């Protein structure tokens, strides 16, 4: 961020440093704070892009019949909305937090591989260019859904090729970023900070990075097979040549289910930092939190086919995946329990980060419960590909990951910018988002239970009212996020007039609060000692 001063407050041998300024500073930077900020800005731009797609979808669904979008365009928008939000908005937001905060939390001078860190970020804009640009090529963007199932993805035009290469590039970015994060956590902790003394955010990112390294190459393999099926005559997903379209779903969801936790675990990490701070109590059950996180990660590899109950799995397979999926509720419930127990008899105050965490707790739990409903094979066969599923994963992705990302911005923003945000505006943003979110997505449960299919631009008359409610909520939610960026820009410019102290939250603990706010350009060049 432009307000971060360069090289202030440190005086030793950097005479030979030649820090470029302006655009070149950001193109060539090896500083984790610059790179973290770029990740966050990129994430916000993609969040707005994906949000515009969502609002176009909701505008079309305001009434039955076709009003503003042709079905092909509608399908392109649902596809790109998914990919852009997952790979462009949510994942980079949390990588941005990791870049900014992990070196500060661990007492490291920077990320382990500062130059590769730059590349991990700068691979994302080319991928975004390919994704957004695909709307403007003949045939338009990929339209088979973000899951890229064949045969639709085999038949599509060149927009699908652009999608495939974008996925390759984003995968390379994720793998490099994850190797960087794992190495930083394993090797750059300050002396005395043992693994079990690490902040939970570092633990959740360690496990997330492992998931990314294990699954991103599998996705790369899957889309490579799509590419060769499309252009070079292989028959991986073509029954005529002995292949099977369902095989793609197996490979894809072997990546796709861990991906859910790649998004959720860093969010859990953020919540595990914030709830103790505003409850003024240490995190309840730290060790069990670590074990629960690891259990979720391991279980996430062996439940993938619960996305595929309607593909004709054998009954034994359906039963296995049903029970294995339900098992995930156990470590997840342990985490929810620990957060509640942390708050139990704490002296709680409700600043904006805490409000978003409480919103997270209620709504993510709700999304978890609908997930349990969907894990039941006989129920899922009814609900598969209906709006119930859409409602379920938006409770997890938006109220889970996105709300905790907002919480992180309000919680760590003073450390990044040196200024407090305006509490009144933060609170309005929270309540506005909370209400608009529920107005948007709660009715989708009813629509799904009544049988409205997802990914279709038209619907039966009886679904009209709840769709209209949902669309109104969506536009209100979108507007709230413009309000959010206005709040953030005012925070960067210091409009609140309140300078952030080194430790602006009295209940906060950790090394990140021992450096001044805003954090100097270089921190912990000599590692601190942790007792």
């Amino acid at each position, binding site marked *: 961020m432009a307000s971060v001063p360069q090289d202030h407050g440190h005086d030793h041998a950097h005479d030979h440093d030649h820090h470029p300024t302006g655009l070149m500073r950001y193109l060539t930077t090896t500083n984790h704070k610059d790179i973290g900020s770029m990740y966050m800005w990129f994430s916000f731009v993609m969040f707005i892009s994906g949000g515009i797609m969502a609002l176009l979808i909701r505008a079309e669904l305001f009434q039955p019949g076709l009003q503003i979008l042709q079905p092909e365009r509608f399908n392109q928008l649902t596809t790109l909305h998914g990919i852009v939000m997952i790979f462009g908005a949510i994942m980079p937001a949390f990588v941005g937090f990791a870049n900014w905060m992990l070196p500060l939390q661990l007492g490291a001078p920077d990320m382990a591989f500062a130059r590769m860190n730059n590349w991990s970020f700068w691979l994302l804009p080319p991928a975004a260019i390919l994704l957004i640009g695909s709307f403007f090529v003949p045939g338009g963007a990929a339209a088979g859904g973000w899951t890229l199932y064949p045969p639709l993805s085999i038949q599509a*035009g060149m927009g699908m090729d652009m999608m495939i290469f*974008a996925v390759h590039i984003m995968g390379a970015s994720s793998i490099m970023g994850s190797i960087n994060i794992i190495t930083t956590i394993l090797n750059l902790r300050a002396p005395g900070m043992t693994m079990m003394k690490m902040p939970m955010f570092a633990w959740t990112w360690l496990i997330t990075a492992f998931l990314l390294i294990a699954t991103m190459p599998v996705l790369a393999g899957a889309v490579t*097979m799509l590419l060769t099926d499309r252009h070079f005559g292989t028959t991986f997903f073509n029954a005529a040549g*002995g292949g099977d379209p369902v095989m793609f779903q197996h490979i894809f969801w072997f990546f796709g289910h861990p991906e859910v936790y790649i998004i959720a675990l860093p969010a859990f990490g953020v919540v595990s930092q914030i709830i103790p701070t505003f409850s003024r109590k240490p995190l309840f059950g730290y060790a069990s939190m670590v074990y629960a996180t690891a259990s979720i990660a391991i279980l996430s590899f062996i439940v993938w086919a619960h996305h595929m109950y309607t593909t004709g799995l054998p009954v034994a397979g359906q039963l296995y995946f049903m029970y294995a999926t339900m098992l995930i509720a156990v470590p997840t419930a342990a985490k929810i329990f620990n957060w509640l127990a942390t708050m139990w008899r704490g002296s709680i105050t409700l600043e904006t980060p805490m409000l978003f965490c409480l919103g997270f707790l209620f709504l993510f739990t709700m999304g978890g419960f609908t997930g349990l409903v969907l894990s039941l094979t006989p129920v899922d066969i009814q609900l598969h590909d209906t709006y119930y599923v859409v409602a379920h994963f938006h409770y997890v992705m938006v109220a889970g990951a996105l709300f905790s990302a907002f919480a992180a911005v309000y919680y760590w923003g003073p450390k990044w910018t040196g200024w407090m945000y305006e509490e009144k505006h933060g609170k309005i943003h929270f309540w506005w988002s909370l209400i608009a979110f529920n107005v948007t997505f709660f009715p989708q449960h009813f629509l799904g239970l009544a049988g409205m299919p997802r990914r279709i631009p038209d619907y039966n008359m009886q679904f009209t009212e709840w769709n209209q409610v949902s669309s109104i909520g969506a536009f209100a939610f979108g507007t709230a996020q413009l309000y959010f960026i206005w709040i953030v820009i005012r925070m960067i410019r210091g409009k609140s007039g309140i300078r952030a102290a080194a430790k602006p939250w009295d209940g906060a603990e950790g090394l990140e609060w021992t450096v001044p706010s805003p954090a100097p350009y270089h921190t912990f060049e000599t590692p601190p000692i942790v007792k």
Partner: protein
Amino acid sequence: MSASSHSAPGHYYVPQPSIWPIVGSVALLTLAIGAVMTMNKLDGGFPVLAVGFAILFFMMFGWFGAVIKESEARLYGKNVDLSFRWSMSWFIFSEVMFFAAFFGALGFARLHSVPDLASIDSKLLWPNFGGAWPTTGPYIDSPFSPMGAWGIPAINTALLLTSGITLTIAHHAMLAGQRSKLILWLAATIVLGCIFLGFQVYEYVHAYSDLNLKLTSGIFGSTFFMLTGFHGFHVTVGVIMLTVVLIRCMRGHFDEKHHFAFEAAAWYWHFVDVVWLGLFVVVYMM
């Protein structure tokens, strides 16, 4: 380079701002656009691809060159060395998972999709399909002979296993500070890798011209060529890595304690070796 301050004890080397990552991003964007154009038969695809590769190689020379300079200036202390070890291990793990996707596809086809297409459930659609492996699938009518395991593939297995031994001898020479022995055995490893690649090329020509075994030969051709092709690509990368290390050895880089580039290339080499053993058993023998 402000060498002294960075390599002092307790300091972790953080590189200066660098243009190479953004050059690499431009390269990959150009490559992606070129590939999309080429695959969709648009004019100008090949030149764009060529430009993309040129920028990519320029980036690799520049970036790796910078790393080699920093390494030779001994800017990388113990901690940086340990970071390299972690990162190379995790990178190889990611490569394992990439191959796992293709091995998984082969397993799925053999254990599930092909038997299913030959089962009673599919008789109405494909009444004459027996489901014997190897197969082009029920609809592609282009019979081929599979590649026998005990000709060139067996020789290739022996070549790669031998190259693992010669590489280990080279490593011991490095540890003992015997430079000429190191160079000799490392060169031998590279020669063995090149012979392996030559045999692979010969085998592909043989498959296409004599066996009618092609990439388009149904699920067998798909898995055969994608698995062996990606492996061959990784061997090529390994040969390039070892060659760079060999040139550095000849120029007097490294010493008994400071030679992680050698070890990383060696780890990678052993990894492609192990993948080959998996391929030999699963693709050629079974």
